[in-house]
């Protein structure tokens, strides 16, 4: 094939500036400064409490030393942490599988979407604590019951966001695929699915945070079996072990932050070459 004469080299101007490079460490500095500020305020409040009420808010170093790093503290709290992490992860994964499947079915069959979507919304609206007692009766105070709480709380964002992503394909692209007589499966895998990845990842990020909440709520309600963080929180409250209580609270937050950070990182990695959301 010959290079046509009037075809010059395409204009070398690149429209969008190349994605801004994040200076490493720069993104961590502002939250780190804020963290230090929070510690100072915490310390100040703690110091201002009268000796009789000081147990309500021990100082940061007291929480760290007695609540987390002391041998009998961490040997109890670390297994609980892992237990809760596994519970939320397990429920989250089940929510992903069924949520994506449900959204794909709703995308494929409009009538199914019309039939199922109201119930999905209703499921979202049911106060989980209200049906927890019922689940206790049906499933006992078991791992299954806790897992179901996690799934119930974490489920909705996945099918909702995934369906939105599948449906938001540019009409011109659909025409292009139809023009070349591609099958539904081809359109799904080469067009709708990749198009939905940004929204799906947003759904994952929201759902992962909810899964941690679900796990802790589930453990607080069903106080049976191997103790997770939720059970520890109540136990330390009863035992007036406030150092450990704050330790468990911090670990619960870290679990949520960990999930969230992982999916933020994953989004950036997968989307930075093509999607606006990951440009910053």
């Amino acid at each position, binding site marked *: 094939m010959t290079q046509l004469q009037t075809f010059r080299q395409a*204009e070398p101007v690149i429209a969008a500036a190349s994605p801004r490079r994040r200076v490493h460490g720069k993104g961590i500095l502002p939250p780190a400064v804020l963290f230090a500020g929070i510690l100072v305020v915490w310390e100040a409040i703690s110091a201002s409490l009268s000796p009789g009420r000081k147990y309500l808010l021990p100082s940061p170093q007291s929480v760290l030393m007695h609540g987390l790093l002391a041998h009998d503290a961490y040997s109890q709290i670390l297994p609980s942490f892992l237990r809760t992490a596994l519970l939320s992860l397990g429920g989250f994964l089940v929510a992903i599988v069924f949520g994506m499947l449900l959204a794909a079915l709703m995308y494929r069959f409009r009538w199914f979407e019309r039939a199922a979507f109201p119930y999905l919304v209703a499921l979202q609206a049911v106060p989980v604590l209200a049906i927890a007692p019922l689940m206790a009766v049906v499933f006992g105070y078991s791992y299954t019951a806790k897992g179901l709480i996690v799934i119930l709380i974490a489920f909705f964002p996945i099918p909702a966001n995934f369906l939105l992503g599948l449906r938001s394909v540019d009409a011109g692209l659909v025409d*292009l695929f*139809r023009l*070349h007589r591609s099958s539904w499966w081809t359109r799904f895998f080469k067009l709708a699915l*990749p198009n939905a990845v940004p929204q799906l990842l947003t759904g994952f990020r929201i759902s992962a945070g909810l899964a941690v909440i679900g796990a802790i709520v589930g453990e607080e309600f069903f106080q049976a079996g191997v103790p997770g963080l939720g059970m520890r929180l109540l136990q330390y409250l009863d035992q007036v072990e406030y150092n450990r209580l704050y330790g468990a609270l911090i670990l619960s937050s870290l679990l949520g932050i960990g999930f969230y950070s992982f999916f933020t990182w994953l989004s950036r990695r997968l989307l930075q*070459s*093509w999607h606006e959301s990951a440009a910053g």
Partner: protein
Amino acid sequence: MVHTIARRDLDEKEALAFSGVGLTYPDGTAALFGVELSVKRGEFVSVVGPSGCGKSTLLKLASGLVEPTEGVVSVDRNRLGYVFQDSTLLPWRKVKDNVGLLLELHKVPKAERDVRVQETLKLVGLEAFSDHHPRRLSGGMKMRVSLARSLTLDPSIFLFDEPFGALDEITRERLNEELISLFIDRGFAGVFVTHSIYEAVYLSTRVVVMSARPGRIVGEFEIPFSYPRGPEVRFSAEFAKIAGEVSKALRGEIA
């Protein structure tokens, strides 16, 4: 009243034929009415008309994306190129994978696909950008990628739906010149929808003028300039005269 005419086969040199084609939407709005149009290989036909006259619909009918409610459209759909108003690239695919998309949909083996993609990228002067994502390209370059994507199928009929409408004047003129080169090189039949009379006259062997809704063909102008046409054709007296006539036909309908 237009009666449905039996499907007819295309002549040997014919690439697209509309016989008594009409389109009425279910709500009763008539979009197109009694369209007769034949485009042969080696012809480049531009369609101009007021906004909403059904120019784009004409291409949707030609491509088979929309079925006519009256009349018959004859076209070889296996070798049909279609460039839309937007570049309609898949943003998650690199330039080379966008160019290879149609070959992929037509199940051309990977090895052959790669060869044809490379050739086509070279043809449109984008080989240096084959690993870029569309986001990093300018509007003109995206349109080139879109053009290249259709070119990989070596179309015998090529439909253009205001492809350069959103580009700046300079890029637009340059792409017009490049399109003429492609047309000379490949000898496809072209149907080009545009708002711009100058673009239509400059590119085409024939310009078709459409009326406002319901769209019908109200004028046809043969363009006498031979190819290749240099940019200076645009400044000749004859060019101005023809453009004036087309404009008159168009305004007669808008008034």
